[in-house]
Each structure stands twice: as structure tokens, then as C-alpha cells.
């Protein structure tokens, strides 16, 4: 079809595994409560049992909170954050790692969350835009974005800010030119670039801890 979202996984492979899981889960279930399951199988009850086998356990620390999760291996970190943890501050702009709207920090490093599977981050610390402020006190980078009007529609903003914080921490905010180069993975279609650069310079020059 138009798009095969998972080109590396042949469809039949998945189906075969699913068939196996269905059969084994059904057999197990049949041994336990035969009458009910025979009825339920028609109502896709087997799918729900198979579902449990398809998920893998995952422990994450997200914005300082420990999360014990069960996720499908194919779920991206971005979709996990947005759709399961309801942390929608992290944005989807392309799903291909080309726009930076989904930038989060993983163990302090900036990462395009759309390009990594959630299960790859077991035991790691994730910081999203929701975890940047300390209570009511905005992070200096957030303050600077407001002050310099480093956005318009606001959609790329969380990614820009997460990237900007990392840019300063990495030591890549030494000059206007360097900031532009190291922020070029974060697209702002509204074109607020000059203001974003000004915000980053302000934070860098202010010497506040980021």
C-alpha cells in the first residue's frame, strides 16, 4: 500500500508469530476455563490474551517519576509519551527524525523520540518539556523563549527548547553561527529562528545553570 510503516518486518512473520501465540494462549486458556473461552474466542478474546504476550515490560523514569509499563516493542518513545502517558508536550512533526519537534532528553542527551523505540530505553531517564520547569518556576530557557518571542504557533517550541537546553549544555552555544548550526535539526516553519537564537544567547550569556 501507500506506506508500509514497518518495512523491516515482513507481514507474514508477524502473522505467523501471532498464529502461534493465539494457539498457545487458547490452549492455555482452554485448560483453565474451557466453556467460557470457547464462547469468547469468537469475540476476539484470544486477541486480548495474545496481546498480553506481545507486550514487553518497560521501566522508565519520566520527568522524575518511575513508570512501570507494558508496551508493544513497535511503539516509539514519542507515541508512548503522547498516547499512553498523555505527555503531549512532545510533538509529532514528521515521524522521521527530520524536524526535531519530538526532541526529549534521554539520560541528559537530546534525542528525536520518534526515531527510537520505547523498549530501547529500559531503565533510562527521560525528560520532556513538562519536566523542565521546577513547579511554577520556568526553566531559564523557557523564560528566555517567552521574553524573546522565540515562537509563533508554539508547535515546534517544546522540541526547540529541549534542543536549546542541550545545545548550551553541550557547549555548542558559543556564537550565533554555532547555535544556528547546532539547532538546525529543529525546524520552525513560522520562522522564529532569529528570536530562538537570541533566546539561547541570552541564556548562555546570563550564565544561569541549565
Amino acid at each position, binding site marked *: *500500500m501507500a*506506506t508500509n510503516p514497518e518495512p523491516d518486518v515482513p507481514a507474514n512473520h508477524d502473522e505467523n508469530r501471532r498464529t502461534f501465540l493465539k494457539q498457545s494462549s487458547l490452549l492455555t486458556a482452554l485448560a483453565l476455563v474451557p466453556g467460557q473461552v470457547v464462547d469468547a474466542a469468537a469475540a476476539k478474546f484470544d486477541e486480548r490474551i495474545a496481546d498480553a504476550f506481545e507486550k514487553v515490560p518497560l521501566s522508565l523514569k519520566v520527568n522524575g517519576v518511575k513508570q512501570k509499563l507494558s508496551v508493544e516493542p513497535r511503539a516509539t518513545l514519542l507515541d508512548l509519551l503522547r498516547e499512553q502517558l498523555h505527555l503531549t508536550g512532545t510533538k509529532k512533526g514528521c515521524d522521521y527524525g527530520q524536524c526535531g519537534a519530538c526532541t526529549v532528553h534521554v539520560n541528559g542527551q537530546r534525542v528525536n523520540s520518534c526515531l527510537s523505540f520505547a523498549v530501547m530505553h529500559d531503565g533510562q531517564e527521560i525528560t520532556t518539556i513538562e519536566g523542565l520547569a521546577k513547579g511554577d518556576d520556568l526553566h531559564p530557557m523557557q523564560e528566555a523563549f517567552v521574553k524573546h518571542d522565540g515562537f509563533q504557533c508554539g508547535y515546534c517550541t517544546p522540541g526547540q527548547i529541549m534542543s536549546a537546553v542541550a545545545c548550551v549544555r553541550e557547549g555548542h552555544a558559543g556564537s550565533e553561527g554555532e547555535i544556528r548550526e547546532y539547532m538546525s535539526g529543529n525546524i520552525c516553519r513560522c520562522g522564529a529562528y532569529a528570536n530562538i*537564537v537570541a533566546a539561547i544567547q541570552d541564556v548562555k550569556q546570563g550564565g544561569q545553570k541549565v
Partner: protein
Amino acid sequence: MSRVDGRLKVTGAATYSAEYKLPGLAYAVLVGSTIAKGRITGLDTKAAAGAPGVLAVVTHLNSPKVPGFDTVGKDPSQPATVGGPLKIFHDDKIRFNDQPIALVVADTLERARYAAGLVKAQYAQEQHQTNLEANKPRAFLPTSAQKNPKSPMADYQRGQADAYRSGAIKLENEYVIPTEVHHPMELQAITAHWEAPDRLTIYDKTQGTLATRRDFAKEWNLPEANVKVIATFVGGAFGNALHSWPHESAAIIAAKVVNRPVQLMLTREQMFTMVGYRPHTWQKLGMSATADGKITAITHESIGQTSTYEEFTESTLAQTRMMYQSPNLTTRYRLAALDIGSPIWMRGPGEATGAFALESAMDEMAYLLKLDPMEFRLRNYTDQDPENGKPWSTKFLKECYQAGAERVGWSKRKLEPGALRDGDWLVGYGMGVGTFGAHRGGAHASAQLLPGGTVLLQCATTDIGPGTGTAMTQIAADTLGLPPQNIRFELGHSDYPQAGTQGGSSTVNSVGPAVQEACLALKDKLRQLAATGNAAFAAAKKEDVVLADGYLTLSTNAAARVPYADLLKQVGGTAVVVEAKPGSEGQAYSMYSFSVHFAEVRVHVLTGEVRVSKLVSCADAGTIINQKTAANQMKGGAVGGIGMALMEHAIIDDRYGRYVTKDFADYHVPVHADAPAVEVFFVNQPDYHVNALGTKGIGEIATIGVAPAIANAVFNATGKRVRELPITPDKLV
């Protein structure tokens, strides 16, 4: 003043349309056709329907009837429109490649996406046409112009037709802009929820909550009051959300089928194919002038691309008709219908396309005459609108020329190209002019005094990024004499008082006066309430009313004080709804915003790489309500112009009629490294013919004229004239 919604935007708390986690939310993924024209002969949805978690697979074979699809265009009381939006899942016809043919709904996004890959289709393919050049001979006059010779799309003539051909000094050139795609960072997204069988709520990416409400109420044959459209935050649009698109209809159908709220977010690839674009346009411009630099004639023709099912038109030739004093002028606008999705206005619609041809030609003629391009423009400056003979409401374009020339260092510019060099870089300067109508539509706003002393204003307008909420808060604060933190302006909801669609640089022009009027009406209402127990208020005028620290008082009599609480007790809350409408001044004046952009570019002598090293954008946009957000909007428009000039190009492989550019790796938009610090200058002179605030609009003129300024600077740097955008290095080496 900083944006009122800044905190929400920097903390991730601003909620966009795919971020409403309603109970029972299901996820939808669209499947697109793989041919550009033909019929679907077979659809195998069995595997998809049986895949885990799948709730429904909707296709034209099983879609519930959308009542409006059958009645649209059949209402005898309404004249038939020229085509109409694609009716999704309505028949087996394929009109463009990646046209949605199925929608898979599942309980999780991963499951919906997987199952969408299992849908298989067979087609009876027909020969498609996706090449504009090949279809130029089939171009036609838009139906609107065929029916109405006074339509702005009709052929226009003043003086003699095509008089440039007999001019002594003349030029004639063709200009092409490719298809460009809006690509707001937020993908098109909708959350559709049938709250009852006849009550629909959608959280939608739209520039007009009321236009969207009207469209879907019509599709489902519902009273408009039964449809709610919520667009509190819109992650950019640039015109892309001025139209109701097939995916929106699809999500609404799906929500009906599964009887659960459905979230549908397009992929970046789908943003190329089904939600509009700036159309690929061919133009020819002929111009003649006298040796002393007076334009004697211009002929400007264009052929723009549209779809086979909808006649999309835009004002490509408008700027040519009114910008320069040319006694003979001819314009001809044509369309070519191709098997591609419908275009939609993209920032600086039409004018940005037309200005590329006009402002390039102005530079070319100036060079032919050995005149400075600014001097040439000044010699053809218009003090009244040459299209209709009316005076301008205001025009401070000369002031913009001067300010821009000083700021960019125009005096360094050499008449002969290639004369300035900095190491391996050739340096050049260019200018381009932009204009757009200062449009104003009717709008309503409500104002309400809350017990805590906050004034709540509401309006159905949207804010796609310019900072509408902030500007309106300032207008209200100024009118009421309250600090901005005591104002709450709510927007983006179809239940709020009427406003037009956010497009055509018209929001502040239209909604601003409504807010102003609502605030004045609130003052008067409060004065009347106060007057019942206080004679001083009975004698006072509404202008004298002062709201301060929980009291209503009078600027003329500080001793007259009535606590808000007393006023509110009388009415149990105060709401005033007023309407502001354009006056009749529009009849007497031509009303436009104007801009001029100056570019300094550097072109690498070996690689042909173009870097915009400096951009100065100057605007006569009337009163500037908020310097910070307005300047940001100007800078953003300039960045958009850099994309138009140097990189944006959606390419179709005509063999398949499908875009080969399908993401940001193929379709380049400006990134941080491409964007210089843009210097912005506003004349900031009010135009009270437009409205009592004196605003004229910024959004479009921020982009219109930028691309030719860059193209002209590239010529000045290299001597190479590129008439087909984008100016990529291969065209310069």
C-alpha cells in the same frame, strides 16, 4: 508585551487538535491510492479488519451515507459551485495519487498503522495528467470569470492590449514557480466525537472554526448549533487549514462507525498529497518603458494548476494591476486542471507568485535602462490606484524604500553584476515589493466582567501563530484602561461570537474593532447599571467610565465609586455582545498594506551555493498593535520567502503522478542555518479608513516580494538571471 499564551507554549501545556484524550479514544490511519487516475476495482480489507485491535475499516464499499455528499450542488436555491471538495469514500473514482481509499480504526495507533498496511487494492488505471507544461495548451479561463466579466479572475485591460510589443525598450520573459507545500510543523489532525447521534464535536486544525462548522453541519445535514469546532491552538497553517479536507470527513465518518471518539493525524507524506499547496504556476511578463524610465505597458499572463474536481483560483496578477503607473496593462489568468489534489492559498497567496514575475521583471527592466532598481520603481510610483483611479487610503511605501535602503546598505550596490566580491563569495543586493489588500470582515466579540475584576472576552477567531490572543488582549486593555493581566481573551471555539476565517491578513483588521466595540459597550452597560443607584453615572459618558481595583468610577468624578459586586448583583453576570462591520470607506479608497524587502546575498563562485547574509523587511501595515509579535511575523514571512527563493520544490514523477518529495529530507525548508537575522522596520502610521485601530495587516506582505528580492540579489551578485524557482546551485554553476 510578551504573548499571553507564551507560558502554555513553553511548558507543553498548549493543547493541539490531536491531544484531546477523550474516553474510549480510537486511532485512525488513512490508506491512499497508488494510482493517480482510474477506478478501484477491488479492495481486500479482510486481513486489516481481522488484525488485532481493529475496530473498523471504512471504504467506499461500506461507508455510511454522508447526507451532504448527495445534496451539495443540488440545492436549486444555490447556484452550482465550480466543483467542490473531494467526497471521501463516496465512489470508486481515483482523482489523484494517494487519494484516501480506506481508513483503518483501531484501539491503538500502532495497531491502526499496522493494519493500514494490510489493505490491498486493485485498480482500473486511466491515463493521468500531472505535468503543467504539457497541459498549458488546455488551460482555460476560470468559470467564475466566464460567468462574470467583472470577476478579478477575468481578463483585465487598460489602454491598449499587449502594447509592450510595440515598445522601443522592451522585455518578455517566462517565470515559473514550482509547487510549494505549506508544511506547518503540526501535521493536519482532528479528533472527532459524536456526543449524540446528531451532535458532533471536533477538535480540528482549522483557520476558521465557523467555516469548518458550516462545512460539516452541511455534510451531515445538521443544524449548525449541533456542531462544535474547537481549535484553541493551531500549530501553524499558512493557508493549509483554510479548507475542509477529506481526512476530516473521514475521521467524522469513522467516529460514527465505531461510535467512539476518533483521532486522525496525517503523516508528513500525506501533507503533500491531500491538504493543498501553492500551485505550480507558469507566467509570462512583457514590459516596455521609455529611455527615461517610465513604464509604458505591461502584459502579465499566468497559468496555475488546479485539480480536476475543484477550480482553485488566486490573485496572481493583482499586484501587477495596481503597483506601477503603466498606461497600458493587460492581464490574463488561466487554469490547468491536473490529476492532483486541490491547491489552497499559501501565505501571500497568488500575490507572492505574481510578485516573483513582476518584481523580477522590474529589476530586469531597470538593468536594461541602466537605472538603479529603486530609482526605477520611484519613477513609476503611484499616488492613486491605477486600476480604479481611487486614492489610496494610506500609502507609505516610499518611506519603506528609504528605510530599507539605508539598513541594508543599498549604496554599496553596483549597477553591474559581479562587481562585489568577498573572497570566494560574490556579493549582491536586490529588492522586491509586496502588497496585499487591507481586508476587513464583520466580526463579533463578547465582553463580560467577572466578579474578581477580570474582563473575559470571547470570539470564534483562531490563532495559528501570529499572536491574535495577545493583540486582542492589548486592544481590550487599552480600551478598558485595565492592565493586560486583568483581561482574558478566549478564542478558537465555534460557540463563541462570530469571526471570519484567519486568512488574508485580516484578523486584527476585523476582530480588533469588534473587541474594541465590545469593551466600549461593556463600559456603557456598566455605567447604566451604576446609574440606577448613583446619579453621577447617569450623567456620565461611556468614555469617562474607569474600571479600577474592583470599582467602577469616573475619570471626570473620582468620588463616584460603585463596587463591581453591586453591579453584578443586579444582573447575575454581565455579558455584552456587539458587532463591528466595515464602514463604507472601502468604496472611496483603495486599501492595501505594502512592503519592500531588501536582500544581501553571497554566492559561492565555485559551488553556486547561495547564502542570504542580510534581509531587511519594511512594512506599511498601518498601526502596529504589538511590536514584538508583529516583528516576529515579518521575520517569519521573510524566512518563508527564503524557502520559496532557494529551496522549496515539490516534485512529481509524472510517470506515476506521485510526489517523489515526501518528507523534509527531499523537500527542503529553511532551518536555523539558513535564516539570517532579519531586520524589520514598520512605518507604524495608522490607516483609519480600514478601522478605528488603523491596522492594515501583516501576514501576507511579510512574504510577498521576498523571493524576487533574493533572485534580484543573485543576479546582482552573479549576472545570472534565474526565472524558475527555486534558485538551486545547479542553476548558477
